[in-house]
């Protein structure tokens, strides 16, 4: 019988200090990581492979066998299935970015123990990318309405929420590799994979979607190891006091960047697309982020000098409204999207008021009006309820309407001869730390200013197979669906809101 401990010691002794050629510094880091720390990954590759193979067999077996035969996705609540069209491509880029992040950690971190964990995570992330793309295709085949599933990975390039998702998740691997690990392993995986891959499966299951839980729970079984990677990385970072000088700022930024997208987005996904209602995102957030992550995980690191992220208090305060605001903007801009929206019923509104006291007073009027605009014969889209489209944040790409449109923390200022919008004090602060990190792209409005909504839809291929019905719809009514002609007749122009605003 071979000794596992001895085997682990030997497979971690592959490192050496090169003397013939110097490896270039490909990913500069300010952090100094000790060469030897705790090992987050105590599996030999042989064991890892058989474990993952077994999990794959179970998960793909379930999808291919019973769930496909019973055509389960076609019977799931359609309201819920619609949001998976956008959620899966967003999450998928997170996995892809994570694969790249671990590649640069393997290159940068001269610590064999930590590298063991990154090595397995790298292949795990390929697994998750494949699983989520597989699930998207599975839904294209089996869902009641496949439009949107069949093209989601294409549409995400210009979609309002997918763009913001990419902006947040690029943080996993663009920049200092340790800053990437803070974004990925410490914030996204440790704080947010529970609400995404655990809590969301409860809602999926309650709404008749059994395929998503099969995939997500299988993914989450890998995430536990990734959280261990994050903890070991963080423990290695704080073990050198010199790192603390920049750790807190990087951690603060990582938390805000992930929060600024994930919380409004997940809030809208959870609360506005459940048909059979269970818990609210606010409740889940309190449980997983506030009590579990901040209360247990981060506070344990206090003795090492790491504090709760700088804008955590503000984030918590914003949690009351940001999901609803993101939901409102999503529904209001439905012609720009690639999934369908199901208007809230009276019962939904009662649920909202119960879960989020005061909700009706701020949002109720919009939802009453929205219901009247679902039929194309009404000749109106809910965008007409607003004076203009909101500016998009230069840093996080989210619309600058948070926490609530009437008390928005938007700020606009000039930099380099151009006006830029920021959704919050935090995003503006982050921009000011190093503006050039956020200036290298064309904004949405620079690309589409002056477009008619119908022109945007045509150019981005947001039309169904008949070439005239819109993929996005304001309701689930299959009898009265909007066509490109209905939209064109309204003559709505996409206008850059910064054109007319003073700095």
């Amino acid at each position, binding site marked *: 019988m*071979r000794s596992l401990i001895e085997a682990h010691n030997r497979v971690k002794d592959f490192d050496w200090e090169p003397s013939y050629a110097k490896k270039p510094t490909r990913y500069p880091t300010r952090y100094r990581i000790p060469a030897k720390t705790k090992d987050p990954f105590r599996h030999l590759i*042989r064991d890892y492979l058989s474990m993952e193979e077994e999990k794959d067999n179970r998960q793909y077996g379930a999808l291919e066998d019973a769930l496909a035969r019973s055509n389960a996705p076609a019977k799931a609540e359609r309201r819920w299935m619609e949001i998976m069209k956008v959620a899966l491509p967003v999450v998928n880029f997170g996995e892809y970015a994570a694969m790249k992040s671990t590649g640069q950690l393997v290159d940068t971190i001269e610590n064999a123990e930590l590298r063991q964990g990154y090595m397995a995570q790298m292949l795990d992330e390929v697994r998750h990318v494949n699983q989520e793309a597989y699930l998207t295709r599975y839904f294209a085949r089996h869902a009641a309405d496949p439009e949107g599933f069949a093209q989601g990975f294409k549409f995400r390039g210009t979609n309002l929420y997918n763009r913001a998702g990419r902006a947040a998740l690029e943080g996993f691997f663009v920049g200092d590799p340790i800053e990437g690990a803070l974004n990925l392993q410490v914030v996204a995986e440790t704080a947010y994979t529970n609400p995404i891959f655990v809590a969301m499966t409860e809602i999926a299951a309650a709404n008749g979607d059994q395929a998503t839980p099969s995939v997500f729970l299988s993914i989450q079984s890998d995430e536990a190891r990734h959280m261990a990677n994050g903890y070991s990385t963080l423990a290695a970072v704080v073990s050198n006091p010199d790192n603390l000088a920049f750790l807190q700022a990087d951690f603060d930024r990582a938390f805000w960047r992930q929060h600024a997208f994930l919380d409004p987005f997940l809030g809208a996904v959870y609360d506005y697309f459940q048909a059979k209602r269970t818990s609210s995102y606010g409740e889940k957030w309190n449980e997983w982020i506030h009590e579990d992550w901040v209360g247990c995980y981060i506070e344990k690191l206090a003795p090492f000098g790491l504090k709760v992220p700088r804008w955590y208090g503000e984030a918590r305060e914003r949690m009351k409204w940001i999901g609803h605001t993101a939901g409102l903007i999503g529904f209001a801009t439905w012609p720009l999207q690639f999934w369908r929206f199901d208007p809230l019923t009276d019962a939904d509104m009662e649920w909202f008021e119960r879960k989020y006291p005061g909700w009706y007073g701020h949002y109720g009027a919009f939802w009453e009006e929205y219901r009247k605009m679902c039929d194309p014969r009404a000749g109106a889209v809910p965008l007409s309820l607003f004076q203009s489209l909101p500016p998009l944040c230069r840093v996080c790409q989210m619309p600058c309407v948070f926490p609530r449109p009437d008390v928005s923390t938007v700020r606009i200022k000039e930099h380099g001869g151009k006006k830029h919008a920021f959704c919050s004090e935090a995003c503006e602060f982050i921009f000011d730390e190093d503006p050039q990190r956020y200036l290298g792209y064309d904004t949405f409005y620079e690309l589409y200013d002056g477009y008619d909504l119908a022109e945007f839809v045509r150019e981005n291929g947001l039309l169904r197979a008949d070439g005239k019905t819109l993929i996005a719809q304001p309701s689930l009514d299959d009898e009265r669906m909007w066509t490109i002609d209905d939209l064109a007749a309204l003559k709505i122009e996409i206008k850059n809101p910064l054109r007319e605003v003073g700095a």
Partner: protein
Amino acid sequence: MSLEAKAPRDFTYIRPRKRRLSEYEAVTCYTQPDPDVFDKQGWYLRSAEGRTAWRKESTRLRHPHWFDFRDPAGLWQRTYVRLQAEQERSLERAVEDAARAGAFADFEPTWVRELVGAHYRVWSFFEYGLFRCFAQAQRETLSDTLGNVYCFAGFDRVRHAQAIVIYLMDLEGQIEGFQDAGAKERWLGDPVYQPARRMTEELMAVDDWGELAVAVHLVVDPIFGEVGLSEMLRRHGPFHGDAVTPLVVSTAERDRRRNCDWTEELVRMVTAAEVPARDENRRIVGEWVARWTPRALAAAEALAPVHERIPRRLGTFREAVERASAAQAAIVAALEARSTEAA
């Protein structure tokens, strides 16, 4: 309209290589964003040094659409993991069966000590170095289909490195007096392995993912891997009562063939008739082959003293090197012929 009318029941944004979209293509293609494809706005974030998520200049090769690349083996995570889990299970069983049959008693003692113990174990350091090369290169490749083959190639290496270590631990339990010791010192100091270590470290310093694949899969593996693993260990094992070591080696050879195949596919793709930069690409690939061939030969030739320690040699070391070198030259010549034809 009826929802069912002509509604697409499969991904519509991927051009399949064959008639129908494969599972491999569906779960792989366009998972990497790209401003030249669907992500018109560009990259939202830069590093403090100003770099973007991906950079065209991460390789000197030029291609108008890197997303056209397809892995000839069509592997995605599930099929890759299944393949490697099978390989590892076959090794676990081979060792178990050999132990039950008492086959380790037939291993020729000098062979076990000098070749399996002293030589093969050093190989794990070479493999681990290449793991680090490919893990980093997968970060930079300019499409998802490329990222995956690089990622798997990296994992192949660390799998083999660990398989060697585990195998030697098993031998320690089976063969009286056998001990896995001193490999790292040999890798760091023994003149026999210094050209190999130099080559490995130089590969670790390569900053072009195209060059890395060409160097390792079309030059280093076919010459250095063929001589040090295939010729010395796989071919000679059975003549020393050792039917097990060749099995361990053969798993790495299987990986090697797969990696060679996709690298050939990559070269074919960048030198195809319709690629504007094909001539320049052909010249660059030729430059890389020319740069790495002498290094791989030097690393292989330095192994001569190890070959001398094989108790029952099948021919001379020179012949082994020449065979490997000729086979490698044939791979390159076939690729050159195809790309010249294409032009």
